């Protein structure tokens, strides 16, 4: 059992999208985990969106911390 590996794999997906200028626009949580929809930030010329399915508790925790950071950044930049 190496739950940490599934966390790292799910975190990697989120981090890659963040690095490519995506941000979280929607989160649906249900019995199957969290479905996190991410969209490219406003200044990008397309509105490509990607949904990542998170299963591990650590990844779902991480995703919410990303949400908090994103909100903080938005409130500071006014965007």
């Amino acid at each position: 059992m190496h739950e940490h590996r599934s966390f790292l794999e799910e975190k990697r997906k989120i981090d890659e999208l963040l690095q490519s200028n995506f941000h979280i626009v929607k989160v649906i949580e249900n019995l199957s985990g969290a479905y996190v929809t991410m969209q490219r930030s406003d200044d990008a010329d397309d509105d490509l969106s990607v949904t990542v399915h998170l299963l591990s508790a650590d990844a779902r925790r991480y995703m919410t911390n990303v949400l908090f950071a994103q909100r903080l950044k938005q409130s500071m930049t006014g965007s």
Partner: protein
Amino acid sequence: MADLQIDFAGIKSKNPFWLASGPPTNTGYQVQRAFDAGWGGAVWKTLGDPVINVTSRFSGLNYGGQRVAGFNNIELITDRPLEVNLREIRETKRNYPDHAIIASLMVEPKQEKWHEIVRRVEDAGVDGLELNFGCPHGMAERGMGSASGQVPELVEKQTYWAKEAAETPVIVKLTPNITDITATAFAAAQGGADAISMINTINSLMGVDLDSWNTIPNVAGKGTHGGYCGPAVKPIALSMVAECARESDIPIPISGIGGIENWRDAAEFMLMGASTVQVCTAAMHHGFRIVEDMIDGLNNYVDDKGLASVMDLVGQSVPKYLKWGDLDLNHKVVAHINQDYCIHCNKCHIACEDAAHQCIEFFTDADGRRALSVREEDCVGCNLCSIVCPAEGAITMIDKPSEVSMTWNERQRMISMFGG
């Protein structure tokens, strides 16, 4: 030398240690000897409508090497005449004017019954009253004790009736045999109670004899449910005290009862909001003189903490007792095995493998010996390995604090803003 005096809803006591209502407070002889030993107060064995007690009343739960880890009884209230009790209360108060004597009372849920008994016991000179809404057996079948203590309206009404007649402070003693003790604590406060005390005993059947198939204890081969108390109930009692202490709608003092055996237990109850503590089973197990160590220990503790008075302890831990949803999900602890103390029993490995997260692994140390270590990234910090480890100091739980905190409630609020 710390000040151990307390003021509990107007009742003064030289220390917070009171004997709870029960066999140790059955007679004036016992209560006076208890006061000589150092107890600050005593709640007299419950007075009320006439009863007859059965023989074979108690049983003890021995667990591992510990005798009386739990204790069970099917005793009712006093079966001695009210006049005799009142005479002894009067005499005890005369001989020990500086000690608190509280009369515990239980009558049928009728206004005139409460008025009558309150007047008669106050006339004997008691310092306060404790309404016993907690006894779980016998009296409950007659509509008293926990039967009325489980119904918030009856708690409120009877408290109100007692208060109508009372001139001394009224403490309402609550039953733990209820889903949410704050409901009855709130009802007591609404009825005008000056204080609450908890817990009375918990419904229990101690055991069944595998040869005779009789219950333990049994009366001529027949048994009934009893009330459980002693060290085993302390965590339950402590949580109930804490639940009430943090509730702003219950703004009255609390007397903590349940499994208290030493000054440490007492200090824990006080930190969680109790301003007196009551003891029954430990006095039955070890005798009145246990109070000497309790007084010394508490005194030293209060001194060591640099506090002037024991009252400064009361409630200090209450703000740290939250709802689960307000705990920090980002905080992490992980287990660490200290090889110098490990005796290689493998219990932690088995526990983590079978009942936790499979992250205690074998490795070969520099001397070629098999040893265990924790794969930290998979450790969820459940504490199980450190709980089962028999070698003191071999497993340490290490804090890995996070820079920002995030509670479940905060998280859910945030997610709801994103459609979740």
